[in-house]
Structures are given as C-alpha cells and as structure tokens.
C-alpha cells in the first residue's frame, strides 16, 4: 500500500466504515509510515476540534426573536390559507 492509497481510504478509516481486511492493511501501513501516522492523527484531531468548537452558537436573545418571527409568519400564513 502506498501513501496515496492510504489517503484515499482515510475518510472511511476515520469514520470506521471500512471492511476488516482493508482496515488491517491500513493499520499495517500506519505501523511503519510515520508521515501517514501523523496525517491520520492530526486529521482526526482537526475533526474533533471543529466538532467541539461551538462556533456560531445561537445566542438566547436572538434565538427567542427568531422563534417569535418564524411562528408569527407561520400563524399569519395559516390564517390566510383558512380564509
């Protein structure tokens, strides 16, 4: 297995959506290829950091305003469709 082959499978490997024989081949490659080992670990870390980052959380006051606006539009839509 080459490093390019490894990279092609990286997404499935990290998502654990790979069959056991391919997984074994990838882990064999990881055991001796330091570069792929580092790329694999740092890619996994990249995903974890973004997943845990809580970027763009919706503040409570804005959330309330948006909910009120959405529901009042839905209610007036409903009234129109009933008339």
């Amino acid at each position, binding site marked *: 297995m080459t*490093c*390019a082959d490894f*990279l*092609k499978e*990286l*997404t*499935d490997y*990290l*998502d*654990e*959506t790979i069959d056991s024989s391919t997984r074994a081949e990838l882990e064999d490659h990881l055991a001796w290829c330091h*570069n792929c080992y*580092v*790329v694999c*670990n*740092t*890619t996994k*870390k*990249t*995903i974890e*950091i*973004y*997943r*845990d*980052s809580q*970027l*763009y*959380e*919706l503040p409570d006051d*804005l*959330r309330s305003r*948006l*909910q009120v*606006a*959405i*529901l009042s*539009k*839905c*209610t007036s*839509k*409903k009234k129109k469709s009933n008339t």
Partner: protein
Amino acid sequence: MEKLHPETMAIIEQRVRDAATDEMSLVRAAKGGDVSAFEQLVKRYDRNIFRIAQHITQNREDAEDVVQDAFLKAYENLEQFQGNSKFYTWLVRIAVNESLMKLRRRRSDRTVSLDEDIETEEDTMPREVADWSPNPEQLYKQGELKEILRKTIQGLPASFRTVFVLRDVEGLSTEEAAEALDLSIPAVKSRLLRARLQLRERLNKYFRQAKGGDGKK
C-alpha cells in the same frame, strides 16, 4: 473512536427510533395545521440551522434570514414532505439552498455551487507533515481558538465547507449529507476527504509542535 457496549448501542438506537417517531407525529400534526407542533420542530433544530447557515454564508445577518426563510419555506411546503427522509435532512436541504442563494447574492457570484469539484493547489497530498502539540486547542485562549477555526474554515471553497459542516460538525451520515446536498455518495466522500485534509494542512501553522517546545509562539 471508541466502540460502545452493545447494550449502550441498543439503548441509543431505541432512543433514535423514539425520536424519529416523535418527529413524524410532530410533522403530521403540523401538516394538520397545528402551529405549536411546528414550534417544537423549530425549537429542536433552529440552533443547527443557524450554525449551518452561518458556516455557509459567513455572515450573521444572512444566517438570521436563512433561519427564518428556511423554517417558513418548510412550513409552507410541509405537504410536499413525504417522510421518505428525516424531516431534519429535508430541512437542511432547504437551508443549504437558501444559504447558497444568499452567498451568491452577496458575492454577485452566480457560480457558487455545490457541484463545483474544485481541484485546488492543495489537493489531497499533504505538503507539510508535522506532529501537533498533544493538546493543540489548549495553546490558545478560547476566543483566539475560535477565531483561528473560523478563519481557517472560511478559506475553504463553499462546496467543501458545506460537506464538512454537515458531516463532521452536525453529524449527518454520508447518505443524509448526500441527500441534503443532492450529491452522490462518492462526491460527498471526495469533498469531505479534501475538506478534512485542507483544514488539517491550514491548521498546521497554529498547532504544530515546536522543536523542543510546546508549540506556542
């Protein structure tokens, strides 16, 4: 990633099934004109839709508009939702389309599309391979870290950014992301791989381990 105990998995799967049933009954009630049932759906997903919209549009006002427009559009078109997919996946599809429209308008760029499969200079082969500090997120204060992450993901093409956000931030499956984005499964996988690798490459300069140090500049 850690494997869960089969019993724990069974409990989680049961909860997922219960939530799906509950969601379908809310959708049915909303279709029948029950606005308070729709309100439950809004409260369940508004945070997710806001995050997705803000990631794609990179603009707070646009994201606020997208949240309102996407839910209103969903409400108006509930009859067309057949229940072949999850309501959330259907809602995400509406929100992504609304977000892309905003992005096109703001950039006066009609070419912004999820179909673009851009071959960039920094394609899949990593250019820099350096190990990171053991806890790279602790090298920066919370606010600084968020700014780094924001700046880094904003540099990705919209099509890569969107796939990454749906799969890795919002936790949609590959199949759900493909459905929400109207892309094939191989296309989602290809964009996801490149998004992940490009983000990793761009974060190197912030997180790599300094020789004989902790990586902090």
